[in-house]
């Protein structure tokens, strides 16, 4: 049973990584879209603070672009780490969503620290570092699980009490929140009843890092239930929109901040040339179905163009 739990843990991690990677590939291999940026675009050097763009310059297409990675990183991190937009535009919700997300970040940090601790106990011995890691595990684990649980309960209550949100919520979204809550509550039960200093969690990770079931602690039923549910959650998340961390990268970097210019001889132009060769499948009277976008775009107007039908 215990080694079965190890196998499940490896599988959960592997599936998570594979599905996240495949989603990443799916989104990044989508065709280039028309420009649809939204200002302020944070990499606009010297103009970002008021939302300006390089188009404010006469003959901008001839001039070198001045961009700032720092601006982009600042915007990205303030959104990732502080959920800035909800803080600015929907503060009451932020008080719930922020503990929830910050709690999850701390739990992820806790996993990472457990991993480091495992490495330090199996492969490299640096006692001073191990002690620091030990205390960080206590801090991240404790604050993380409490904050995430409170936030999660708050979000569930809000989904039901705030009709604005509730009317738009579908079954699976409620299920997702409850799934997370159950994992968190079994985690809390395990923590309180069995593992107040995360000692067994460290041992569990040590076994995983060493690929050796001999290091495994003796788990109580609630601890086993927690590990199984947690693994299932890891497997489940990338298939759902709880993986919005992937989507968020693309919505900002590849849509709202994508201001790459098309100039003759550029990569963008080469892509436009290819894409406009695609046949148009649309059926309205003003479309020559089957002809390419380019052929359609350069056609002379016809009488039926103004008509409609279904």
């Amino acid at each position, binding site marked *: 049973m215990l080694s079965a739990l190890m196998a499940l843990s490896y599988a959960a991690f592997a599936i998570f990584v594979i599905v996240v990677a495949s989603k990443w590939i799916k989104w990044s291999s989508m065709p280039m879209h028309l420009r649809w*940026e939204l200002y302020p675009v944070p990499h606009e050097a010297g*103009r970002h603070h008021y939302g300006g763009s390089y188009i404010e310059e006469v003959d901008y297409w001839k001039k070198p672009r001045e961009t700032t990675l720092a601006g982009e990183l600042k915007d990205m991190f303030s*959104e990732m780490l502080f959920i800035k937009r909800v803080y600015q535009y929907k503060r009451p919700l932020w008080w719930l969503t922020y503990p929830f997300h910050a709690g999850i970040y701390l739990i992820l940090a806790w996993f990472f620290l457990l991993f480091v601790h495992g490495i330090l106990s199996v492969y490299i011995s640096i006692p001073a570092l191990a002690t620091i890691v030990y205390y960080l595990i206590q801090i991240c684990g404790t604050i993380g699980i409490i904050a995430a649980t409170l936030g999660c309960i708050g979000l569930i209550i809000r989904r039901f009490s705030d009709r604005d949100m509730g009317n*738009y919520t579908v079954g699976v*979204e409620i299920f997702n929140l409850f799934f997370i809550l159950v994992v968190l509550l079994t985690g809390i039960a395990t923590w309180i009843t069995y593992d107040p200093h995360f000692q067994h969690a460290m041992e569990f990770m040590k076994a995983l890092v060493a690929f050796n079931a001999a290091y495994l602690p003796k788990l109580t039923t609630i601890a086993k239930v927690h590990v199984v549910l947690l693994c299932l959650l890891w497997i489940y998340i990338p298939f759902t929109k709880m993986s*919005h961390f992937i989507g*968020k990268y693309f919505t900002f970097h590849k849509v709202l901040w994508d201001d790459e210019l098309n100039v003759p001889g550029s990569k963008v132009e080469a892509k436009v040339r290819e894409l406009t060769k695609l046949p148009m499948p649309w059926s309205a009277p003003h479309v020559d179905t089957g002809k390419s976008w380019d052929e359609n775009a350069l056609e002379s107007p016809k009488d039926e163009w103004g008509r*409609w039908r*279904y």
Partner: protein
Amino acid sequence: MGEVEILSREIKPEDAASPVDQLVKLTVRDLEKLPPPYDKPGMEPELTDPKPEWREKYATDLDGYIAIDLPWKPQNKEEEERLVKSFLSGLNKLLTKEGNWTFLQPLLLSLEYCAKCQTCSNACPIYIMSGKQEVYKPTWRAEILRRIWKKYCTPAGKIFGKFVAGDIELNAKTLLRLAESAYRCTLCRRCTQTCPIGVDNGLISHEIRKLFSQEMGIAPKALHELGTVQHLKVGSSTGLTPDGVRDIIEFIEDDIEDKIGKRIKIPVDEKGADILLIHNAGEFLSWPENPAAFAILFEEAGLSWTLSSEQVAYDAVNYGVWYDDLQLARVAAKHAEIANKLEVNKIVVGECGHAHKAITVVADRVLHDDIWIPRESCMPILWEIVKKEKINFDPEKNNFPVTLHDPCNMVRLMGVVEPQRKILRKLAPQFREMEPHGVYNYCCGGGSGFAIMTSMNFPEWRNAVATRMKFKQVLEAFKDCLDPSINKYICAPCSNCKGAIRDMLSYYKAPERLSIYYGGLVELMVNAMVDLEEPFIEWEFH
């Protein structure tokens, strides 16, 4: 026809399919209050019901207003089935690379990742000023499309049904309301700025419009039949022909001579000029003082420029950007082709916001090889004229209250924010900003085609609801000088915004009650020219 049935309870996304005649009925009392002096009863007209006969063939099913002025309401079961089938066929095309490479990635991201947190709702001027009518919430129409997409186009939705897709029924009512609701959003994308995930509800409205247009040719006549189609066939969406435009240009030359005592020869079809200046053709017909002011400034500053009198190229508009990617590409390609034929170095767009964005930004990835030409905004050029002191200006000539309306397309959607304000800070001593402004501005209410959609009862909705936030902002910007003895100027450097603002001011009787007028930026610049003996701005409402 009997009593009209309205849904008398809280509205949810699934109510799009409700069999009632109309989901909501607006009254002035539901709407958000306006500041003084419009806080008193009787200061604005009551809202009317649609004509009963419209209900038979037109989509009055959402809120009683009609944006899509085509008789497209199915008359029997068979027609309803055909409509649903066409819609689903269009939806599937919207999800393919061939059908929608233009917006596939942004659309799917927005359908997939909305967290339903409603952070975006309060950013929407239409939702807020309507008194928070559910059907105008940025997420309402988006959620309807999302549920249909989940249910009919995704494996999860097909297997798990309602649990994953939510509650939605696809019938004629759903589609009539979905299509109309896509025309209760100005595509201003203010909601998108606030979304923590970057989900774009404005884009979803755009894609719904596209689906109906590209698959069925269903779009408001002003945008399609009389818009892009007329533009490509006749030369302009206003119906203006090449001969017509040449006549107007001559008339403008006469007018300039009358005003400044000097004849300017406006260059037309001059090969090899540096700039091809393209105006929104609405300027020639409704505000000829705007092209006149451009001509004065460009000539006085010694620029090498020309207008075109060739079909399509004397009208900068590109309504395709609001509802149809193919029509967008057709108009943009024509603009670029004619500019290349004239051997100019670049196209410069006059005071027209959507034309700015369409040709400079959105069509940037449509033009290629022979059909490519540099395009830019007129704003930086105008600022250079002021900055480099190519003309002598006396700001005292503009010593009256001025506020700036930011066209969404110029600011939020392409980042041209400062040049126009720098000009105003220099040339308008009483310039004051609206709040919020710049990239966080509110739409004039005429965005995405609303300004030119004037048939049936749509203008009433536009004036009462869509422009309401702008009117509120204007009243607040001028609150220290509302006295009608003081002339006030809303500077709106965009033809469509001017159209919406003109109708708004007239609807609220603001010129006669408060002496609030409007106009472009170049008129203010010319008004400040030292060489002019008489004021260029005439303080006439038209």
